[in-house]
């Protein structure tokens, strides 16, 4: 199914978030966040450190429970689901790419085992099939086939991040959460990774929520953009519109703070 088919098939949002609020005691993590995410859409969340973007992402991905608000995935209320259901969802339909690949990978397990883990978690029990799929996915993220039995600790930072992406996408998720996927990589490796991500997102028709403080990343990947400050969304709209014609004072500051080479 191509992206266009998938997008025209339904005009229902894949993820609907209403009034999401998370407090840490008296402090606000994020407050009153609402948005819709449609199939095949990439939503960027930008903001400075401490603006609540990571809190928001972890609430959406089910790592934290929000205090207020509703999250509906594919019409189902995520917060009302049992833990079994939610964890199954996060193994099959969802994926989460951590900023630090060490958080998302099993460093003591080979690359093939890392990619195969999600398959085995959903019941794959045929070694040959699992290995075949793992090899296929390593190829897609440009990791040489002869590295399949090496451990991630023998990989470079960029390879580890690509391996983490392969491990997440192998079960064909529909919604991917990414937390600073290019953080900590040097610029040439970043560029390759972004290229790869853009290709995968387009080919697989993924819906993505990507959190970053790097405006160049959202410029390349995101269709829509949300700007957060002090836990609140201060501006949202199409990426080009927000970046080229920022309305809110904070967004203007953010855009003008980017260093020019």
């Amino acid at each position: 199914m191509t992206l266009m088919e998938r997008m025209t098939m339904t005009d229902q949002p894949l993820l609907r978030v209403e009034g999401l609020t998370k407090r840490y005691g008296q402090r606000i993590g994020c407050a009153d966040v609402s948005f819709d995410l449609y199939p095949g859409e990439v939503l960027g969340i930008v903001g400075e450190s401490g603006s609540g973007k990571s809190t928001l992402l972890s609430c959406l991905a089910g790592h934290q429970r929000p205090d207020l608000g509703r999250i509906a995935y594919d019409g189902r209320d995520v917060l009302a689901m049992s833990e079994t259901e939610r964890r199954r969802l996060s193994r099959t339909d969802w994926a989460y790419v951590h900023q630090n690949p060490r958080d998302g990978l099993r460093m003591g397990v080979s690359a093939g085992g890392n990619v195969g883990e999600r398959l085995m978690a959903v019941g794959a029990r045929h070694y040959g099939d699992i290995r075949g799929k793992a090899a296929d996915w390593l190829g897609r993220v440009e990791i040489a086939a002869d590295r399949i039995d090496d451990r991630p600790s023998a990989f470079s930072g960029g390879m580890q991040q690509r391996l983490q992406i392969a491990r997440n996408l192998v079960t064909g998720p529909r919604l991917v959460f990414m937390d600073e996927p290019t953080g900590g990589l040097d610029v040439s490796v970043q560029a390759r990774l972004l290229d790869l991500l853009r290709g995968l997102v387009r080919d697989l028709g993924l819906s993505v929520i990507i959190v970053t403080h790097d405006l160049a990343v959202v410029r390349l990947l995101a269709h829509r953009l949300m700007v957060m400050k002090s836990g609140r969304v201060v501006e949202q709209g199409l990426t080009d519109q927000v970046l080229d014609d920022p309305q809110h004072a904070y967004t203007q500051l953010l855009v003008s703070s980017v260093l020019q080479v």
Partner: protein
Amino acid sequence: MTDQAYNFAYLDEQTKRMIRRAILKGIAVPGYQVPFASREMPMPYGWGTGGVQVTAACLVPEDRLKVIDQGADDTTNAVSIRRFFQRTAGVATTEATAEATVIQTRHRIPETPLKAGQILVYQVPIPEPLRFLEPRETETRKMHELEEYGLMHVKLYEDIARHGQIATSYAYPVKVEGRYVMDPSPIPKFDNPKLGNNPAIQLFGAGREQRIYALPPWSRVESLDFDDHPFEASKAAHDCDLCGAGHSYLDEVITDDAGGRMFVCSDTDFCAGRRAKGHRGRLSSEGVAPPPHPSPTRGEGGASLDAMVHVNDPLASSPPRGEGMGVGGADPEGTA
């Protein structure tokens, strides 16, 4: 003779009650690890403190106790635990599997089939099968709760990727009654098929880790595997050199420094029983009274068996010897 300074079977009655409750719960939920308030026992952790507590809670004065260590009745661990219960409970002891009512074992299931009414007590170093893959206890409990056992197959996958086959040869994970994944204690995987459909009650005690779990009689127990790499109960491809048995689990024993070696049954009672019935192996002297069983840790076998060293059989490596040293169930490949 019972030492009157102690209660029957060493532990006080309230402690035994507490342990029995844990055992009953374990039997009610096969394969589930029941926490219990493990007591300090007069022996070091790793020497069977869990098994001893379970045995103490099960013993009644009419019982006949057998204790084995790696299949042998006469190794240090087995002898000391047997003497412990002789002294504190005054129960009868035996070396014959068929005559025993309670059998405490370390790392083997006897070759002689067990029967209804018998209790087999295992000493367990690390009860959590997922431990070397997931170090967090909170997380492994959640994985058991939600039946998320994919990780167990990751370990088997790593085995095949590295060795071309499932190289896990002891403490081979099993699934009980289609629900809980369980560590069968470091028994060789040769013994895994005996876990299921067994008429005896099987109890597992881990003293340091404070867990008891159980297999009620006739439980369904499956060893985990892949469709294209099925489970195989392996052993050394030899016959016993003393009794000629071709279907028992073997220890490899080095007999000299010129490459001489022999394979003998690890189950001493089974081997002696066969020799008493006249079975002979490659190295047993015909017509002479059978030589004492060369258990590796005793080192007092026949003249030619003087300098015996126990080594791991490359074909079917025996379970690790020292469960207390380092990590008993540690996978030697370090896939954790």
